[in-house]
């Protein structure tokens, strides 16, 4: 019941006219930017960081909550109306959603996406309220070696599950870890990889890394391959659903939520797996399997719900353990640290009112999103027609402004460009960007935990492996690493049998 009281306090903080206005601005701007083609939720949050710089932490996070869900919803609008999703988590929505739009059912596709996102987001946030404090209770009992194991699991999850190529994922992770090394070593005060540049002594700001890799890298990459006849945008009226659509949507929403939240909450989860699982399930359970591939509403309702629920799920490890598991959570974490707030088990004790205000504003933002998006969908659709030179020039413009504003030093702009070029190269050669950003954020923490573990064991390497929790995690890790080797063996055997 303690949590309920805390949550009510959180609502008390949010429900003031000023804060509601901030939430509304967050939701609106988040959706507007998220709708823009080529801008996914992570880039939306990264580009909008500067608008929160002048605010108090609580107010900033109220706004963030709106930007977070707004950016997610904006992305799905793009994939329904344009068919070429920028984010891997919206791929599935585009399959059926765009077919529906082409068949003149864009209004229903957007409606089931909006209402499904609302349902899944609300249930997901409620589950967050229930689960996060339990995870915190568990996490407080963990020692440094256990944390180290969790960090290593997050590294493995980001490189192995997502990337089709492990070697490329691992290369990206290592680059991120190296970027994380730059600056003064906190324990001994020695400079590492700073090359005597005083501005590098404090390290490279995570916000600069995120904006460089996500925004500048993406803008340069798209600019290099700009389509000269942008995709066809399907005109849309006000979203609505008939009775039959409701009947066909509500179960997929709930099932999608059931897939999305738990998988999103895992340290190696993400949104891709639950959206695909949800799609496959709906296809199997549907009474109209023949409609799949031609615009089945279940194929939009389920994956959209799964996508949003997994986003709520990723907030569990992010808030309770300080562990980002997708790109959006990674950028949010960067925002936390720029306020000097370190997410993790102690966050719920130290910054209790902040956390609960954030959670309360997730509920509020979600509701605003629903009220806003149904009537405003035609306006969002217009944003898709923005001339591409302005869109990408605007991304570079806001990226530069945001990166400069972090520390007011032109050197950050140089770093931003260098990171943008790395991001460009990664997109060209198919290196995933998520492991890099996770490496930058978690690398320094993992090193600190490792050194603390060794301090406890007086430098004996056995100290790196702690209690039962770390044993279990290392077993999972081993399975994750060994699985492709085993499965390759199996398929080879099967091939031999077939031959």
């Amino acid at each position, binding site marked *: 019941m303690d949590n309920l009281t805390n949550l009510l306090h959180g609502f008390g903080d949010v429900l003031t006219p000023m804060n509601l206005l901030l939430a509304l601005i967050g939701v609106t701007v988040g959706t507007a930017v998220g709708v823009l083609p080529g801008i996914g939720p992570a880039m939306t949050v990264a580009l909008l960081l500067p608008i929160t*710089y002048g605010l108090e932490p609580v107010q900033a996070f109220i706004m963030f909550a709106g930007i977070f869900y707004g950016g997610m919803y904006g992305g799905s609008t793009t994939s329904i109306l344009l068919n070429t999703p920028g984010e891997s988590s919206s791929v599935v929505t585009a399959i059926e959603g765009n077919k529906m739009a082409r068949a003149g059912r864009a209004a229903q596709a957007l409606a089931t996406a909006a209402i499904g996102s609302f349902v899944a987001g609300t249930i997901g946030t409620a589950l967050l309220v229930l689960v996060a404090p339990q995870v915190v209770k568990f996490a407080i009992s963990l020692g440094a070696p256990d944390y180290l194991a969790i960090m290593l699991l997050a590294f493995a999850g980001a490189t192995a599950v997502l990337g089709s190529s492990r070697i490329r994922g691992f290369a990206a992770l290592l680059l991120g870890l*190296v970027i994380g090394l730059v600056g003064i070593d906190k324990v001994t005060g020695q400079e590492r990889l700073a090359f005597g540049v005083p501005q590098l002594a404090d390290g490279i700001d995570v916000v600069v890394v995120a904006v460089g890799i996500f925004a500048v890298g993406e803008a340069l*990459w*798209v600019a290099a391959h700009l389509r000269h006849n942008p995709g066809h945008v399907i005109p849309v009226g006000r979203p609505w659903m008939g009775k039959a659509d409701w009947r066909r949507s509500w179960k997929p929403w709930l099932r999608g939520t059931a897939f999305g939240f738990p998988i999103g909450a895992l340290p190696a989860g993400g949104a891709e797996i639950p959206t695909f699982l949800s799609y496959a399930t709906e296809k199997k359970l549907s009474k109209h399997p023949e409609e799949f591939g031609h615009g089945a509403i279940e194929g939009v309702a389920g994956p959209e719900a799964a996508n949003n629920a997994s986003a709520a799920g990723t907030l569990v490890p992010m808030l309770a353990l300080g562990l980002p598991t997708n790109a959006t959570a990674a950028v949010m974490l960067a925002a936390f640290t720029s306020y000097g707030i370190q997410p993790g088990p102690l966050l719920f004790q130290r910054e209790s009112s902040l956390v609960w205000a954030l959670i309360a504003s997730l509920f509020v933002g979600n509701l605003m999103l629903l009220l806003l998006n149904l009537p405003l969908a035609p306006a969002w659709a217009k944003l898709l027609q923005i001339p591409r030179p302005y869109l990408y*020039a605007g991304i*570079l413009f806001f990226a530069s402004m945001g990166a400069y504003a972090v520390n007011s030093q032109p050197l950050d702009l*140089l770093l931003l*460009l260098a990171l943008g070029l790395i991001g*460009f190269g990664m997109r060209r050669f198919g290196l995933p960007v998520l492991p890099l950003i996770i490496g930058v954020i978690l690398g320094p923490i993992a090193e600190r935990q490792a050194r603390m573990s060794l301090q406890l064991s007086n430098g004996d390497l056995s100290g790196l492996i702690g209690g039962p929790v770390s044993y279990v995690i290392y077993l999972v890790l081993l399975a994750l690493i060994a699985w492709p080797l085993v499965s390759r063996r199996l398929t080879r055997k099967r091939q031999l049998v077939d031959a």
Partner: protein
Amino acid sequence: MSESAAVEAGPAPGDRAQYAVCGFLALVGALVIADAARLKHIATSNDPIGPKPVPVLLGVLLLIVAALYAVDVARGGTGEAEAGEDVDPTSPVDWRTVLLLIGAFVVNLALIEPLGWVISGALLFWGSAYALGSKHHIRNLFIAAGLSLATFYAFAIGLGVNLPAGVLQGIL
């Protein structure tokens, strides 16, 4: 089945430019090790391993990954270039646009402190729009100026974000 396996095993004419990535990774690895080598080894009871082992480990791993990556490329492995709403993956890299964008970026970087955000930001936007093929040069100038003025007033003056006023100090 066996045919496809044979194709996989044989040397395929992969994307040779990928060797540049291997080279880059190896270079970073060497740099990290070289930087770690000049660190003083400080081991105390508080911190038995000091700041050295982690960079050395990362450097070695980078060298190993660079080598494995090269093996993968030699076997014909390729990474899948990223797709997106506005990306035409079949077109070759348009270097002219990329270099012009980098140019606009560098102009902003060089001028932001002496001239201020309003001027350097406007040049950045105008230059980027030009690089990306917009033909409305005069109209773009107005949009660029409007955007940088609006952001300056909203963020620097309204929200207290640090953006330099530069030569326009006192006028804005």
